[in-house]
C-alpha cells in the first residue's frame, strides 16, 4: 500500500516534469507562438531548478533521515550566509557571528536529527538570542545595538530555525506506529516541498493572467492580490487531490494545509523582497548565474515549513 502510493507520486511528478520540459523546449524552439520569450526563459530556468531539486531530494531520501537533515542543514547554512552578507554588520558582531555559524546552526540541526523537539524548539529562539545579545554587548560596541542583534536573530530564525521544521517532519510519528517504515514521513516532506513550489509557480501564473492590484508596490512589483488568491485556491485544490500522499490528512484537511502553505509562502516571498529592496539588490548571492541565491529559492519554504509541521502534529494528535 505504502509503496504503491510512493510509486504513484514519484511517477506522477516525473511525468509532469518531463511533459513540462518538452513544452518548455518546444516554446524555446518556436519563438513565433506569441508568448513572451522572457517568460519562456523563466519557465525553463525554473524547470531546470526543479529537476535539480528532485534529483538532490531523491538522493537524500534514498540515503535516509540523517542525510536529509544534513542536506537541509547545509541549505540553512548557505542561506544564513547570504542573509548576513547582505546585512550590514559591525566589527563588534564578529565573534557572535562566528558562534552563530559554527556552533548554534550545526548544533540545532544535530538536535533536529536526534528528534529532541523539546530542546530544539527553544534552542535558537531563546538561547541563541540570549547569547547573541550578551556577546555583542561584551564586544563593547553599543552603536545601534538592538538593530544589529535583531538582524542576526532574524537571520537565524528565518534561515535556520524555520527551515529546519521541514526535515523535522521526518520525525513525526505518523499513524502512531513505527512499523510502517519511514516512507510516510518522506512523502509528507515531499508533499510540503511540492505544494510550496506549486504555490510559487501558481502565484506567478495567476499574477500574469489576472494580476491588477499590487499588494505593496514599493516592496514587490509582481505580487498581486489576484496572484495570492489564485495560488491559494489552486494549491488547496492540488493538496485535496493529493491527500492520499500525506498520511494523516483527510481531503478537507489537506486542502486547508494547501491554503496555509500558499499564504505562508507568499508571506515569505514578501518578507525577503522587503529586505532585498532595503539593501538595493535583486537577488541573494551569485551561486549559479541567473538563479539568484539559495535564499531566493527557499524563502517561501522557510515560512511554510513550521506552520505545516505544527498542523501535521495537531492532526496526528487529534486523529
Amino acid at each position, binding site marked *: 500500500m505504502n509503496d504503491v502510493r510512493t510509486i504513484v507520486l514519484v511517477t506522477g511528478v516525473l511525468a509532469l516534469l518531463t511533459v513540462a520540459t518538452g513544452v518548455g523546449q518546444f516554446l524555446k524552439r518556436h519563438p513565433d507562438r506569441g508568448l513572451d520569450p522572457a517568460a519562456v526563459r523563466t519557465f525553463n530556468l525554473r524547470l531546470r531548478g526543479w529537476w535539480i531539486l528532485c534529483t538532490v531530494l531523491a538522493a537524500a531520501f534514498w540515503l535516509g533521515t540523517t542525510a536529509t537533515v544534513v542536506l537541509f542543514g547545509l541549505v540553512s*547554512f548557505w542561506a544564513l*550566509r*547570504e542573509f*548576513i*552578507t547582505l546585512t550590514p*554588520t559591525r*566589527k563588534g558582531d*564578529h*565573534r557572535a*557571528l*562566528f558562534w552563530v*555559524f559554527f556552533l548554534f546552526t550545526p548544533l540545532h540541526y544535530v538536535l533536529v536529527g536526534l528528534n529532541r523537539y523539546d530542546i530544539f524548539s527553544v534552542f535558537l529562539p531563546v538561547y541563541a538570542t540570549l547569547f547573541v545579545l550578551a556577546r555583542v554587548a561584551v564586544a563593547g560596541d553599543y552603536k545601534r545595538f538592538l538593530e544589529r542583534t535583531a538582524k542576526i536573530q532574524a537571520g537565524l530564525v528565518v534561515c535556520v530555525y524555520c527551515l529546519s521544521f521541514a526535515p523535522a517532519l521526518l520525525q513525526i510519528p505518523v499513524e502512531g506506529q513505527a512499523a510502517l517504515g519511514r516512507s510516510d514521513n518522506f512523502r509528507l516532506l515531499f508533499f510540503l516541498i511540492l505544494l510550496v513550489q506549486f504555490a510559487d509557480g501558481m502565484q506567478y501564473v495567476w499574477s500574469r493572467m489576472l494580476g491588477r492590484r499590487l499588494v505593496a508596490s514599493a516592496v514587490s512589483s509582481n505580487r498581486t492580490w489576484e496572484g495570492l488568491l489564485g495560488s491559494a485556491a489552486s494549491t488547496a485544490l492540488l493538496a485535496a487531490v493529493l491527500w492520499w500522499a500525506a498520511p494523516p490528512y483527510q481531503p478537507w484537511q489537506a486542502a486547508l494545509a494547501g491554503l496555509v502553505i500558499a499564504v505562508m509562502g507568499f508571506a515569505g516571498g514578501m518578507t525577503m523582497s522587503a529586505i532585498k529592496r532595503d539593501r538595493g539588490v535583486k537577488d541573494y*548571492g*551569485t551561486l549559479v*548565474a541567473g538563479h539568484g541565491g539559495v535564499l531566493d529559492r527557499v524563502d517561501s519554504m522557510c515560512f511554510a515549513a513550521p506552520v505545516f509541521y505544527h498542523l501535521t502534529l495537531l492532526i496526528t494528535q487529534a486523529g
Partner: protein
Amino acid sequence: MTLATRPDATQRETRFQRRLTARAVAGNDADMLSPADLPAPSAPAAPKTVRSPLCRAAGLVLAGLARILSGASVRWIASQPDTCQRVYFANHTSHLDALVIWASLPPSIREITRPVAANDYWSRGIVRRWLSRDVFDALLIDRTDIKVHQSPVDLMLREIGTTKSLIVFPEGSRSITGEVGEFKSGLYYLAKKRPDIELIPVFIDNLNRVLPRGEFLPVPLLSCISFGPPLWLEQGEQKLDFLVRARRAVLALKE
C-alpha cells in the same frame, strides 16, 4: 560570471611560449641593461623550486578551503586568466587577501604566481614558514630592514625571473576603515623597470568581514574577487598620476 571569454589552451600556450623566447633573447644580451632592469642571467627561467607532492596537495586543499570559507565568486571583467607574466595588485583588507586571490586563479596560473608578504609576520613559527615558503611560494619582504641598494622592488624583480607573476598590495598594509588607501610607489617602480609585465587590478569585496583586522576566527560570509583589464605605465607618465590611475582602476571594479 565570466565576462571575458577564455582563449583556448593552444592559444595561451603559444602566447606564453612566445613570451618565453622573447625574454630568453633579451636575457642573452642582458649585459646591455642595468642589473636592476632585468634578472641576472643566472636567475633561471625555469621554476626555481619544484614543490614536493605534499606541498602541492596542501596548496590544493588550502586553496579549496579558502574558496569555500570566503564563498568567493570570481569575476574577470574585460580580462582573462593567462600564464603570461603579470603583477596582480589589489586593495588590502584582510590576512586572507593574498590566499584568496591566489586560490581564485586557475591551478596552472596559481603554480607560477607568488604572493608578496611581510617577512615579520610570515616567517614566524614553523607552520607559517612552511605555508609561505613551500606551499604558497610566497616572496617575503622585510618591512623593517629596507636597504637602499636592496630595495624590495629589485628583490621582487630578481625573484620572479622571466616567468613568475606576483600578487602585491600597493597600500602597504591592511586598511582599517575598509576604504582603499593611497598607493605606495613600489607599483610605479615595478612598472617602470619592467614595462613588459601586465598590471592587473584586483578588487576584493567583503573579505574584511570574513576576517577583520585583529580577529583570528573567520565568519563564512560571501566575498567577491574581481579581476580587471591590464594596464601599463604610459610613456612619460608621472609617478603620482600613475598611482592615482592604478588606484582608480581597482576602485572601478567595485561597481
